């Protein structure tokens, strides 16, 4: 069954259960006189001081609440799965685990790479020494840190704002 059909079915079930619950609540509010005779159980003489406990009604309400909760859960799961499938089709990143906390080593490497980049921007020069230092530091960075460094450095190298004097790969 497709995700859309499952959601539709779940919504129909949810609506039905809401109607049942409301019906039960309405019936509870009714006085014994208002209740239809056919709906009454076998009429033992009711004692005014001790009304019959509506055990069946309580059970029904509890079941309805559980059913509603289950349906809500199904709807939530189906919606989430549907959104993730759409995101995958659109090539967007799905809800992923949060990025790992950078280690002390990667934080230190990030500071050094940022120093290299800032120096290069101010001197407008990227030579063999900078390339070698960067190539040594880059593997220590997390993916997010690496992206941060590249975002600043690579466009400046391509635009010529930083002159690339290093022969071969710049890092």
């Amino acid at each position, binding site marked *: 069954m497709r995700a859309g059909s499952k959601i539709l079915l779940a919504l129909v079930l949810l609506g039905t259960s809401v109607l049942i619950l409301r019906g039960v609540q309405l019936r509870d509010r009714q006085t014994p006189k208002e209740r239809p005779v056919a709906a009454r159980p076998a009429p033992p003489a009711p004692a005014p001081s001790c009304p019959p406990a509506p055990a069946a009604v309580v059970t029904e309400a509890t079941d309805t609440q559980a059913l509603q909760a289950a349906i809500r859960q199904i709807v939530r799961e189906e919606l989430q799965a549907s959104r993730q499938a759409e995101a995958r089709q659109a090539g967007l990143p799905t809800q992923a685990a949060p990025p790992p906390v950078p*280690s002390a080593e*990667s934080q230190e490497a990030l500071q050094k790479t940022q120093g290299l980049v800032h120096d290069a921007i101010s001197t407008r020069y990227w030579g063999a020494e900078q390339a070698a230092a960067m*190539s040594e530091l*880059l*593997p*220590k*960075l*997390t*993916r*997010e*840190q*690496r*992206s941060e460094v*590249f*975002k600043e*450095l*690579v*466009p400046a*190298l*391509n*635009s*010529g704002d930083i002159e*690339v004097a290093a*022969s*071969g*790969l*710049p*890092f």
Partner: protein
Amino acid sequence: MRKGILSAMVALGLVATSATAMAGFTANQPVLVNPFLRVAQGALGSARNSPDNIQFIGCAVTDGAGGAFVTCSARGPGGNFATCTSSDPGKVAAASSINSDSFVVFRYDAQGNCTLLSVSTFSQYPTKAH
């Protein structure tokens, strides 16, 4: 005597012709870098065999704490330089398939992300002579 010289010339011609035929189709692909179109291309063998001491093209795959990533760079004979990076597994795999006879094309965006990496290895691309 004249017949002998003629025969020798014919034989030499045949040898030369057959040698040319055995070489197959060749296509020199020097490095081109267009910073306006943000594209670079070239055959590794052509770059290496070029008479200038400037042009190069290639990609490097590096693995590290943040996973593998690829860096492609090129410089054309006129000095134009281009580089891009990507962590996309497809591009990392493509870069890993480059060899010394490959022809490489890469495109990149304004942020320096590789948006395309094409690697082709055909017989017509020159091998490195030295």
